[in-house]
């Protein structure tokens, strides 16, 4: 693998890892606060899984960088500032209400499911193997969040209103997950990753009818592409700073701490 391609793959893995880490951390904020005990258990598990998946992607990036896995992952998570994070804005937004949280997780899960199916065919074997593995776990996430979207979308006036409000807000950010970068084109040509536009088309084909069945109307229908809306992955809202100051607090106070 030439240096340029390798760097593109490391960047791709870091972007995936950062999305999972930040979403997992946001989800973990519900631990002890979810609406019912069963959901507290379920959602803490989902948070743990997403953070676990982040570790898998950081480790693959570490292997490519020829760095020790734990050291690399810890450095990426605890010692980077917000501008160096490559997560999308959608996952860093505050957890909001239960409707917002569930809908965000559903949208992310469905996107991930489509991407993992494609990545399982990657010409880079370690990526294909990890994607195939993670996909089996994501089946449980998607089933869970789909049930909540249906329940709240078709529930009371209030639950429906909250879901529609969350959808209007989230769809503005969702598109960023599908924004291509120049590096993606290199990786696509090497059959390592799917084409972003293809992911978008597949994901929309799945989420739009599902949302409509749950009585939720995507604000711009099935065509959410807006040429003025491009947000780059180094651009963040102020919320990421708040999240990182919490996530990195102990590590920054005592960089040698072990737990």
């Amino acid at each position, binding site marked *: 693998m030439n240096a340029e391609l390798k760097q593109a793959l490391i960047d791709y893995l870091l972007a995936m890892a950062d999305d999972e880490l930040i979403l997992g951390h946001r989800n973990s904020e519900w631990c002890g606060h979810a609406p019912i005990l*069963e959901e507290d*258990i379920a959602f803490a598990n989902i948070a*743990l899984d997403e953070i676990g998946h982040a570790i*898998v992607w950081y480790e693959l990036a570490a292997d490519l960088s020829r760095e020790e896995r734990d050291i690399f992952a810890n450095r990426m998570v605890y010692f980077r500032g917000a501008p160096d994070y490559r997560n999308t804005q959608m996952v860093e937004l505050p957890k909001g209400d239960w409707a917002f949280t569930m809908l965000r997780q559903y949208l992310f899960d469905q996107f991930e499911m489509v991407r993992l199916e494609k990545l399982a065919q990657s010409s880079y074997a370690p990526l294909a193997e990890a994607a195939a*593995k993670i996909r089996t*776990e994501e089946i449980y996430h998607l089933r869970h969040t789909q049930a909540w979207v249906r329940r709240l979308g078709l529930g009371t006036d209030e639950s429906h209103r909250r879901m529609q409000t969350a959808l209007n807000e989230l769809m503005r950010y969702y598109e960023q997950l599908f924004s291509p970068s120049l590096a993606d084109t290199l990786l696509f040509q090497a059959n390592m990753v799917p084409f972003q536009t293809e992911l978008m088309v597949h994901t929309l084909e799945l989420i739009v009818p599902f949302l409509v069945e749950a009585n939720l109307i995507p604000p711009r229908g099935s065509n959410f592409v807006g040429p003025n809306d491009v947000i780059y992955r180094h651009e963040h809202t102020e919320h990421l700073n708040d999240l990182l100051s919490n996530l990195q607090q102990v590590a920054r106070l005592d960089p040698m701490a072990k737990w």
Partner: protein
Amino acid sequence: MMSKAVQEIWQALDEVKDPEIPVVSLVEMGIVRNVTVDDTRVIITITPTFSGCPALHIMKADIVQRLSILGYANVEIKTTFNPAWSTDWITESARAKLREFGLAPPPIHRGDLTVMLLEVATCPYCGSTNTSLRNSFGPTACRMIYYCNACNQPFEQFKAL
């Protein structure tokens, strides 16, 4: 043919228990995939049950600890996702132990997880199939929570993967 040293290591690893289910071993769970020994070191290849399983670090430490008793100081542990771990690999002996432990073993799915999700869970206490799913997630990443309507007992099932 397996060398005596390799055989001895497999036997030792069969005594290392799953930290979250202390009645079954890492070998019975299908977590240990390969053992090789050369002059200077032992390489153990394991595969995570769940990719983000927090018990993985404990498993690695337990393996190193157990092999140090055998006199192996240089043990390297590799992880692999190829092929991805499947609950179908859990041995029959381990399934019986899980049941005894109060944990319903996962249904055999032969790769089709979607069909498997429709399977009825059997209560490990009374054997009834009159059970209902309460939570697809449980106290650890690998368990889900059911309720037995026959003996009025909540129980956990190992999540099929």
